[in-house]
């Protein structure tokens, strides 16, 4: 059965947003729906999307591979994305990455044995002042990650506590986790 077979109403809603002869424009929302529900976009799904929007699997693959958001291989329940761009790197993201790989025993493209974790190194997440930063699924960032905070995070998730609760109760979250730059009038910080 196709992924979109029982989502015809939703499809109609999406296509209504674009001109009739530009069905290809709906490529991204369709990809996103599959990614969110299945954790990755399989080749079968690419072909299905291509068929629905009237293009080729090649173009779907081209769009998909451009964005690091879309996964071509299955991911775990918690897909951990580690920023490795300059600021985070200076703040120790290499060490963070190494710790994660060792602790979870997986490499990018793999899923941990319990099905919980998968790993990905990504480019700048846009929170350079609170590096190193990781993102789990589509949720809030985990900022200023230290060994201690990482340990607590993984422990919490291994016990299947809700992600938001785990994030809020990380050690030192009150002091370091919510660093806000207050803008004064005139744009000077």
């Amino acid at each position, binding site marked *: 059965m196709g992924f979109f077979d029982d989502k015809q109403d939703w499809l109609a809603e999406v296509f209504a947003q674009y001109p009739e*002869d530009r069905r290809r424009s709906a490529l991204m929302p369709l990809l996103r729906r599959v990614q969110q529900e299945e954790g990755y976009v399989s080749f079968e799904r*690419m072909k299905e999307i291509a068929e629905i929007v009237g293009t080729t699997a090649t173009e779907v693959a081209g769009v998909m591979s*451009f964005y690091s958001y879309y996964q071509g291989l299955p991911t775990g329940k918690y897909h951990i994305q580690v920023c490795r761009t300059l600021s985070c790197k200076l703040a120790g993201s290499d060490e963070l990455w190494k710790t994660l790989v060792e602790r979870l025993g997986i490499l990018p493209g793999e899923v941990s044995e319990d099905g919980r974790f998968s790993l990905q190194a990504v480019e700048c997440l846009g929170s350079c002042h609170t590096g190193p930063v990781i993102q789990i699924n589509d949720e809030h960032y985990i900022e200023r990650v230290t060994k201690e905070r990482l340990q607590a995070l993984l422990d919490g998730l291994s016990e299947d506590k809700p992600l938001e609760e785990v994030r809020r109760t990380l050690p030192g979250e009150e002091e370091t986790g919510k660093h806000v730059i207050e803008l004064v009038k005139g744009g000077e910080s």
Partner: protein
Amino acid sequence: MPKVKVNDRTVEVPPGTSAMDAIFHAGYDVPLFCAERHLSPTGSCRMCLVKAGSPRKGPDGEWIKDESGEIKIFWFPKLMASCTLAVSEGMVIDTLSDEVRHAQSGMVELTLANHPLDCPTCDKGGACDLQDRAYEYGLEQKFYTGPTGEPVYTRYEFSKRHVDKHHPLSEFIILDRERCIHCKRCVRYFEEIPGDQVLDFIERAVHTFIGTADEGLPSNFSGNITDICPVGALLDRVARFRGRNWEFEQTPSVSTEDASGQYVWIDARSGRIERIRARENPELNDIWISDAARFGHEWVDQDRVTTPLVRKGGSLEPASWEEALAAMQKGLEGVPQERVGLLLPGDATIEEGMAAAELAKTLGSGYLDFEGRSAVPASNFPAATFADLLEADYILTIGDPTEELPLSHVWIYKRLRGVKTPPRLNHGTPIADLSIREHTPPDRSLLGAFAPYPTRVMEWAEAKGVFEPGQASALLGAIDALLAGRDAPRVAGVDAGALKQAAQRWRKAKKRVLLLGAEVLNDVEAAQLAEKLAKSQGALVLAMTPAANARGLEAMGVWPSGDKMPRALLAAADNPPQLLLDLAEFKVFHAARLSEVVRQHADVVLPAKTSYEKLGTLLNVENRLLELRPAHVEAGEAEGLIQVIYLFAQALGVKSSLRLVRQARARFTERYKINLDKLEEFGQVWRPRVSLSPRPRQGEGGNLYLRPSMWKSRHLLGETVQRALGTLTLAAHPQTALAEGLDVGATITLQTPWGTQAARLEFDDELPKGWFFLPALGSNPGARVPFKALVPEGGEAR
């Protein structure tokens, strides 16, 4: 028209022209990698950077002046990619200053940063845009110097990126991902020209590579990407490693693979054809040719007949021309002259047709025919040109343009995308035509497509339908009735609404083009209805015959008359009808290749030149005269058909007045006032008056439909084509096949009146029930023949 100043020259160009074309129009040069004629400009390589500026008008509507009273030029703050910059009135472009040259040489350096330096083993070497530009910009001391002032080749010290170096995209094309400079020409080509987006950029940034998620490159036009690749990343696997660019003898000629007469370059080396490339003809094939025209030449040096052969004691033995003449004289003795038949190949030239017609007339013989002849003469229809397709308000196809006349597929898609005929500038076709856009959806309302099986162009058609083989006349009859305002009879398999829609669009259109395939041309009733439809409505027709020179031969009078089968035969065709071979007692073959048919039936074989080796003239599907020119191919004692006809006449004891192409051309000039030696550069339209009556083909009837195919049986002799095509596909509706006890995937040996053929059975539930479809691979597309299926193992024979 805007006036543009390029360096020191001022030129006028049409509005909407790109700065790049203004520069070339003015006679200056600008380096480029990604812009390409007929493709949308994207500005992705940034190689064509120039300094540009325009004057501005003040609130008073006057040009703003500077302090000295001159019109002030407002320069763009940065250098601009000239391919995506449209010209404006008074624009000033600078391509020569140090600032521009420095930026351009920087781009060359950047492009080379990851490009391997394997030019000595790269097939593109010597004809490579990047190599030329590297030579031009590299080592310019002014820009590149080391710490002590010595010139350096590059300032980059990183190691180069290493990726997949030999990645086959299909059996015909191989991709070297290290050499790729990401210009996107091939990606744009597939999307914009044949209309299959089968290539795309995968990943991004430095990881980007060209790839596909579909199976192979399905288009009939995949080879063109090897021509337009500006580096050696995409290479033709037939020609790979067969010679360096400067070693080839390049002959401008015309392809005889189909009736369009695509312009080609034949690259030969040491007497062997190594490569065929597209040659630009803006009125015919732009810069594109079909895969059959490009890759289908491998058979030329296989099993070549290089001397005359005479049958002695059961086997064909090499002989001298004198011995062959003597054998012919002996064999033809006692055969009445009017019972001597002449069978020409479909790509025989006008000159050869003229000689054959003269001989047939002298002999009083009625059997004068050519291979791939349709039942109704193609000349009966008012011919459209491909350019007419761009003007058409409605295009109706009955047949399969993609296979029968591949070039028309490209022109139809151009029309549906709204592409206009580009202006001709001093340097020819605009290189960066800003009116062409990526991803323009085809306008489906302009096309109606009907055929006995689902075709590629149906995907772009609003009105479409699959009718049963043999029902073309019913379909045309229904359209005729609808146009006359009557109720149309039902056509099995075709939606009545679609027919009504097609008729309505047809009626409303001012300019109409009708494309007719073998299905119509071989059905006398259908063809007459089509002729009536075209003539009564002032529509133009592209009659897609399999013979390359059908119109030229018809114009020369090569057409059968009378019903007597010949007792002696001069056959210059690949696959003469079996009946003919069985009835003729004495058979002379003019053949380039010792095929099974020749081996079995010939009494005398005379070595023939292939169409790559001939001088001659063709009249293509648009009634355009095109010149074939001989490439340098080693072919022993091979002779042209004119010389052979002369010799054959001599053996019959009659005199032929034409012995040389030159003489035939002189005769042609005398008769039609056209000098074939001096045709216009892109061919010349000639509309001869021809009146011939229809001649139905023999042996119709049966439920195997020979589907037109671009590939011909001779192409299968080539290793690469054979690998690409694999086993032929016999397609049928699942119910039909299962009723015959044939299951999907079974390899079946088919016995047909045209010979034995192995094929793999595939199901296709869109096909009409009760029929089997097999690629025709030759001169009998559209034929309906009986067959016997033998299943070797694991299945039932019927």
